[in-house]
């Protein structure tokens, strides 16, 4: 296991170096005039004074050649300093940490909820393929995967904040405010987890390994929930790593509709405002997390699946 982990983590510095060049260059390839965009976000003047534009360009460090800007940024980033936001003129790192904290809580809660609902539903459905439970789970999971967040979010607000005033409609702070965003975000992974678990469990239940266990006199419940379900979780755990990284920075719709100060909203606003230090820092953080969570998911997969462990050896 440590050897496998080491092999997976070895290319990380190289991946991050490549990612740093990409996240630095991509926003600059948009063709937009960053100085003018920043000026417009500070003072919405359609005809800014050229002298002011020059001063702002100097203040933002955009007046030097591109390679010099990159090396300066990379050097600072290696020291843990991602610079100052072009918009707020305050340090990027605390902004990212705060937003990442919110998004991590939101995403982890959503994936946990998705797992708690989707996996048992999938396993139960696999017990009798074609039965009423299977049909219900399949229908609900297809529906869950099909309803987009921008429809589900206001629907949930209408029901649970307006018609039944049980939860706040928007905002962040306290467990009550987190319920609707978490449920909205959890629906799609829950539906996917149910479908995957159902398919995998049904496959595992048909294997010789299960038939042998059944012949040894193991109870159906134990067969289903310990032997079959455990092995069928491998694809769900593999996906959860990617989901985690994707949802961290990609839950923009949920964060905008519920006014949640997460990473997705921070990056979305930063892209629109050409706030390059925030965009660069945020993307770099996301790439790092994506790599680490994928490796983490593989580790969990190894722990759950003896076949995968043998294959790795």
């Amino acid at each position, binding site marked *: 296991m440590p050897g496998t982990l080491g092999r997976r983590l070895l290319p990380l510095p190289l991946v991050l170096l490549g990612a740093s060049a990409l996240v630095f260059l991509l926003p600059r390839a948009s063709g937009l005039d960053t100085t003018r*965009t920043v000026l417009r976000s500070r003072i919405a003047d359609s005809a800014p*004074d050229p002298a002011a534009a020059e001063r702002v360009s100097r203040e933002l460090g955009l007046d030097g050649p591109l390679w010099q800007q990159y090396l300066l940024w990379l050097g600072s980033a290696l020291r843990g300093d991602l610079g100052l936001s072009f918009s707020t003129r305050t340090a990027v790192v605390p902004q990212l940490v705060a937003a990442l904290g919110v998004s991590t809580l939101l995403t982890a809660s959503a994936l946990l909820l998705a797992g708690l609902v989707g996996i048992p539903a999938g396993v139960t459905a696999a017990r009798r393929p074609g039965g009423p439970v299977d049909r219900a789970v399949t229908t609900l999971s297809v529906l869950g995967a099909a309803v987009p967040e921008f429809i589900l979010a206001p629907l949930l607000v*209408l029901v649970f*904040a307006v*018609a039944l005033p049980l939860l706040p*409609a*928007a905002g962040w702070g306290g467990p009550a405010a987190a319920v609707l965003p978490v449920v909205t975000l959890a629906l799609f992974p829950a539906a996917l987890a149910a479908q995957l678990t159902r398919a995998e469990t049904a496959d595992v239940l048909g294997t010789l390994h299960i038939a042998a266990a059944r012949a040894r006199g193991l109870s159906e419940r134990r067969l289903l929930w310990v032997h079959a379900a455990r092995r069928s979780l491998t694809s769900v755990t593999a996906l959860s790593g990617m989901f985690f990284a994707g949802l961290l920075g990609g839950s923009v719709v949920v964060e905008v509709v519920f*006014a949640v100060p997460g990473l997705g909203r921070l990056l979305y606003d930063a892209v629109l405002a050409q706030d390059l230090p925030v965009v660069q820092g945020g993307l770099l953080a996301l790439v790092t997390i994506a790599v680490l969570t994928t490796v983490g998911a593989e580790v969990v997969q190894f722990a759950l699946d003896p076949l995968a462990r043998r294959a790795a050896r």
Partner: protein
Amino acid sequence: MHPAPTRSRAVVLALLACLVTACGAGTAPQAGVAVPDGVVTIGLQFAPRSGFAVDTDDAFVLTQLGAVETLVAVDGERRPQPGLATEWTQVEPTTWRFTLRPGVTFHDGTPLTADAVVGALRYVAGVAAPPRAIAGAALTAEADGDAVLVRTAAPDPILPLRLSAPGTAILAPSAYAGDGPPSVVGTGTGLLRITEADAAQGVTLERFDGYWGERAGVASVVARFLPDPTARALAFRAGDVDVVLGLPEPAVLELQSTPDVEVQTVPTPRTASLYLNASAPPFADVRVRRAVALAVDRTALAEQALAGSGLPASEVFGPAVPWGGTGPVPAADPAAAADLLAQAGYGPDNPLTVRLWTYANRPELPTLATAVQAMLAGAGITAEIRIGEYAAQEPELLAGRYDMMVLSRNLLTDLPDAAGVLTSDYTCSGSYNLNRYCSPEFDALVAGLVDLPDPAARQDVFARAAQLLEADTAGVPLVHTVDTSATRGVTGFVPDPANRVLVTSELARTG
């Protein structure tokens, strides 16, 4: 960019708005008289983009919430009134003396002194991009007893008005102690003191009992930033906020008929216009520009295309300002438009085809462009719509490489004086003259403002300038935007067309 995605988004938004309005009414507090020491929650549509930096447009949030003040205030007629300064005189052509209001205390307990004001003005004048109102003025300040002398590089007849802009608000010296933008927590002079400021979520304010003016009617205000229109409407329906700004049109229609909810509509100085590039054919010919103006039915655009969420424009300035056009809106006359086009050499044998640009950053613009396209077709003009991103289009616009464009512009963002926008947008050498309009008569009229300090006389010039633009068809003003707000369980909320003030001493909860 293809317009289809915008249409689908509009359909989705309309569907969501229907969902918003189809549900049962939210909880409504009992109507009644003002309750002292209440808490009012406000849902704002725009979050600060620059970390509450007072030298940026974020200053509007601070003045709206009654946390900060400027040396000069403005009244409903957009004329200067005493603020933190009680009086002012022009002691020299380039120097004004502002006498400070005695007995004013900052929220941190320190007194408002001439040195504090000088420090604040020097900071804002010295940032890389000073606020529009004082940009280019080369403003300097020095203390003079209980007054402040403010100097400009050139004689400035409207310096008091410039110092009414939110970006020139005065904060306590402690605000400027750090490295970043000045801190706004507990450093203002307004009737409410900021206790928490989070640019992503909102601001919490409490009544400042040491305020020099009338005491606030609320104990505290919680302002929440809710940028999504549907989410704002839902938060109001759910009772999460007592006051909400910038409602989507379907929600307005529903809330207007909801008991205990007061919906108010106020015109803004924002105008959506059809810009016509007069530097090249076909719009170099004034007959073609007039034909376009005649082909467009501005009343139908406001009342039908925008479903009443705008007012038809008769001139570039509308009812949001005292000098705005009050005359009848020009009626559409496609037949007369076709005649003018024929005189200019266009007709069935030589059809006129133009490119009509707009951008989707403001959702009403593609709708307006589509309606304008249909109206132009009625006069024999084929307009090919191209929807893009404004930031990407701007270089082409400034270079005059376009035919016509539907564009929305806030004409008086922070300074209640139109000299700046008339100069930049319509004079021959104007830096934002998208219409490429050039009239010596117009330039002379605007140039005369340099020696005109009287606000009433200046407003008269602004009105004449707008009439001249209309006569020369320097673009076609289409609609003036309106802002809509809704309140429930509060009294004393009056929307401000200038978008500077939301919270006043009259605002209170009712019970």
